């Protein structure tokens, strides 16, 4: 039996439940396996929300420490994934509730101290890697520029490939409202990217 994500690699839910049971009894090795299975998803989800690598790592760390601490309170181990993402989301909102999303400035430096590529008509002579990097920035900027409620559903659906039902459970919202917001988020991202590509 596999966990219900559409697309992407899936972890066998029976295996996950066993790891959780062992972790609840203090088995750190089992908890590391859980960490390895979910850290990428959580890190990238938080990154889409806060648009900062350093802050995403900090919040991911806090998330997994809290999850270990509260693991005993999880009654149904099969609901681990939505529970995990709710904790991650809560950390994001605790820290960034009133903060607008940070857009990438054309004169800013990224986390490695390198200048962000200026988005000024570079399409004339870029090589493929250069163009790919540029598009990455455009996509990331488009996601960061989304309104908060669109950004989180976009991050969970298009990026994390979670099912609509799983997303609705994580966010505590109805399936129809999640569906419509995912559609609007995709339309908005497409509009941003289209404007750049002039397609």
């Amino acid at each position: 039996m596999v966990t219900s994500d559409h697309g992407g690699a899936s972890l066998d839910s029976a295996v996950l439940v066993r790891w959780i049971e062992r972790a609840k009894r203090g088995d750190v090795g089992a908890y590391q396996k859980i960490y390895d299975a979910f850290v990428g998803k959580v890190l990238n989800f938080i990154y889409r929300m806060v648009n900062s690598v350093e802050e995403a790592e900090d919040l991911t760390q806090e998330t997994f420490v809290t999850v270990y601490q509260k693991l005993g309170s999880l009654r149904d181990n099969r609901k681990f994934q939505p529970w995990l993402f709710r904790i991650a989301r809560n950390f994001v909102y605790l820290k960034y509730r009133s903060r607008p999303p940070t857009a990438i400035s054309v004169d800013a430096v990224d986390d490695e101290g390198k200048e962000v590529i200026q988005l000024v008509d570079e399409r004339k002579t870029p090589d493929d890697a250069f163009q790919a990097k540029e598009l990455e920035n455009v996509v990331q900027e488009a996601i960061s520029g989304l309104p908060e409620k669109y950004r989180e559903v976009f991050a969970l659906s298009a990026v994390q490939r979670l099912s609509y039902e799983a997303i609705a459970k994580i966010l505590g919202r109805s399936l129809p409202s999640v569906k419509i917001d995912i559609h609007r988020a995709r339309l908005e991202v497409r509009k941003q990217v289209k404007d750049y590509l002039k397609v």
Partner: protein
Amino acid sequence: MDCTNYVDDLTAYIDGELSHGVAERLRLHLNGCASCTAELRGLQEAVVLVDSHLRELKPGPELWANVRSQIAAIEVSPRPTGFLQLLHAGRWLTATVALAATLLLTLGVREYLQKRRSDEAFRQYMTDQIEIRKLQDEMPRLDIQLSNSTSQGRFSDNPFVMVSEETTIENPFRKKVE
């Protein structure tokens, strides 16, 4: 052609999140609607573009090291399993305590009512006994005169019936037989 009902479902259609019936209706609509088909294609291209240019962060080894060092200080008390887990689960414990309290209360009230009825019955019995004793004490003082010599009628053995000659009353309507 009214596309209002279909446009909002396009993303869910791409993600495979529509029910079979709804997906089938949308597919039929797309077969005859160039506008929605173009919109669907645009969305699919955007999905491919985003997927292929999404910056994917990879967690470094120091991230787990930091988590590991923090959780080492956290003490985890092993939770009981099986039946004991039920008892330790907060809501089961609360339900059990509530049920036990209700049963005790019910039994207590029932016992109280039974005792009260029993006390009432005992008091009534004692009251009756006292009355009977009083009557028995008063009976010898009653002045009952029995007429045993002249009229040994059917009431001669009954101490509560007084028979006397004076109670014979002549019937004025009876014809005198001469």
